[in-house]
């Protein structure tokens, strides 16, 4: 008997004669009080993100390039660039106008070829869009769309500037899941990389980007 048949047979034996459980009660909240994109949700999202020690900027669409430039500035403040000129990476589908006010070089992933992990490690930061954000938990989800890029892009560089549009902000986890495509590679981000492994003291910044700068675009 193959291991597969053996394990499945064991499971069937184990369950033989058991009664089927009842239906799953789903009387928990399916949605929050406020509709997606409402000012209350943007306030809540900003509050949660700040609690995680992420930087948060709010801007109208017209102010986006300036806000992105300020986010890059803040995210790299105190970082030693070893005398190199500032160099950021963006996914292929990101609107380049967002970076109009950023001084320095911008590399587009996949323009000539996909960048290797070692190359990404030498870049100073990445700017991406988002798919959906959960206000109650301060979470932003990326799904690998053209403005968000493959997963390594938003992981290896030390600064992640994340641009979230107001309409992408929902209140609760169930609302966010309903907007996502399960088969895409998904990354749920709630603040910068952190650990509580030493005496349960939270320390921001381990392996993921040590600085997360969120730009909320209101309209």
């Amino acid at each position, binding site marked *: 008997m193959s291991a597969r048949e053996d*394990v*499945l047979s064991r499971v069937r034996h184990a369950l033989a004669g058991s009664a089927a459980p009842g239906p799953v009660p789903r009387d928990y*909240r399916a949605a929050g009080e406020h509709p997606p994109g409402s000012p209350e949700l943007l306030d809540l999202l900003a509050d949660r993100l700040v609690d995680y020690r992420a930087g948060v900027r709010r801007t109208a669409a017209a102010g986006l390039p300036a806000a992105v430039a300020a986010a890059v500035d803040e995210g790299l403040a105190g970082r030693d660039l070893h005398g190199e000129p500032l160099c950021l990476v963006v996914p292929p589908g990101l609107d380049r106008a967002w970076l109009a006010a950023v001084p320095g070089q911008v590399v587009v992933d996949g323009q000539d070829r996909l960048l290797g992990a070692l190359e990404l490690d030498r870049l100073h930061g990445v700017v991406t869009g988002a798919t959906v954000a959960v206000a109650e938990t301060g979470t932003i989800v990326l799904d690998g769309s053209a403005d968000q890029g493959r997963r390594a892009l938003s*992981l290896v560089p030390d600064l992640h500037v994340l641009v979230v549009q107001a309409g992408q902000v929902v209140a609760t986890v169930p609302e966010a899941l309903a907007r996502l495509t399960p088969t895409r*590679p998904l990354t749920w981000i709630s603040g910068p990389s952190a650990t509580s492994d030493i005496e349960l003291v939270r320390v921001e910044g381990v392996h*993921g980007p040590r600085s997360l700068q969120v730009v909320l675009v209101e309209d």
Partner: protein
Amino acid sequence: MSVDLGMPVTAPRGVGHLRGEESFPVAARRALADPQLRRNIGKATGTIRDKRLRVVGEVPDWEQLRTAGKAVKADVLARLPELLEQLEQAFTAAGGQVHWARDANDANRIVTELVQATGADEVVKVKSMATQEIGLNEALEAAGIAAWETDLAELIVQLGHDRPSHILVPAIHRNRAEIREIFLREMGAVGRAPDPDLTDEPARLANAARLHLREKFLAARVAVSGANFAVAETGTLSVVESEGNGRMCLTLPQTLITVMGVEKLVPTWRDLEVFLQLLPRSSTGERMNPYTSMWTGVTPGDGPQEVHLVLLDNGRTAALADEIGREALQCIKCSACMNVCPVYERTGGHAYGSVYPGPIGAVLSPYLTGVQDNASLPYASSLCGACLEACPVKIDLPSMLVELRHRHVEADRDEHALPTAERVAMAAASWVMADPARYAAAQRGSRVGRLLARRGRIGRLPWPLSGWTSARDAPAPPAETFRAFWARTRGPGS
């Protein structure tokens, strides 16, 4: 020993980490004698308890989520065969390969062969209880493959040649000064050494781990992970983490091997909405953990292009076959039960022997191995009920502990011709209490116990009663029994 194929079997001996080398009371006594350990664990569990209460308190529908979570998990177990087949089909259709492992030996062999097939001689690992349970690192090492733990706490445990003592924060028994020493002493031998002027500030220690492990992440060709959830309908796997080491392992290498217990399924995508709310608040006391990754097979041009899933039994079907033990398989490994347990808080995790400590470990380990192999664990509890209250899927741990004690006593009676001291004492008590005259005489006799007492307490009784007083004082019997008091004040016959 002959094994019927297709019948549930407990986890095999001689491999993995489900059994301790000594019983809980013996190991606990040593842990209790270590004041540093008690301070470290007391401080850490106190911190996390407060955090959990704060973030659970702000969720208005927490009880409804718990009820739903429990119901989903019960449904998973009841429909496990069809859901496993559904998962296999979906994961395979998305470009992944599924492997089945009856036990730890099967799983270790499968993973070792998969790594060997890539030609790699090292792997990076995401923290995973399943691979701890089966002793995968040792199996890989025996095959000449180095396994690098990349979770900060697991790294501390691995570099310290130590054992994990908590399922979420495996180095909870270490304080910052100890961690600094371990890093300075051990890191250089296996990779990038820390700055010699490393301090014990947690941020500096975390940075030392970042620099040490980044070299490994950027060079790794194979990663091994566990999974927090697998969605049967879509074939999606998920890892919930904080540091980004999980993302590194799940994204950068060419090959990804995930080892997962067969019970970690959820039926539908929508079911994640329950567990992604329950798990982070219950485990780290955060509204959401920093990173959650979800992947479905292979995504061309993004992440590992060869993905494997090893579905592990290793005693789970034996637990499933038990109508009461089955409930232990609903566990989502959040660790809330150990953080609130007054026993765990004092002894720490090592005393439990198994990789699963605390209340859930005291239940799950005996069900996976058979109660005779972890006979002392069901007694590692005061039955106070704090674990049931904290459990996000409402596992009735106290009732299961009582049931396992009952099983152990029954099994013990069947196995031993000679009665135990406890059974002699219980039989004697039953004979004495069955007759009022005998009971009164025994009570008068018990006053002799006052001769042994100091300041109202008896610290040590002679054998066989020493079993009772080795771990606790007995109160001195009163000078006058209630029956004597009644007879004296109300007169005979009243």
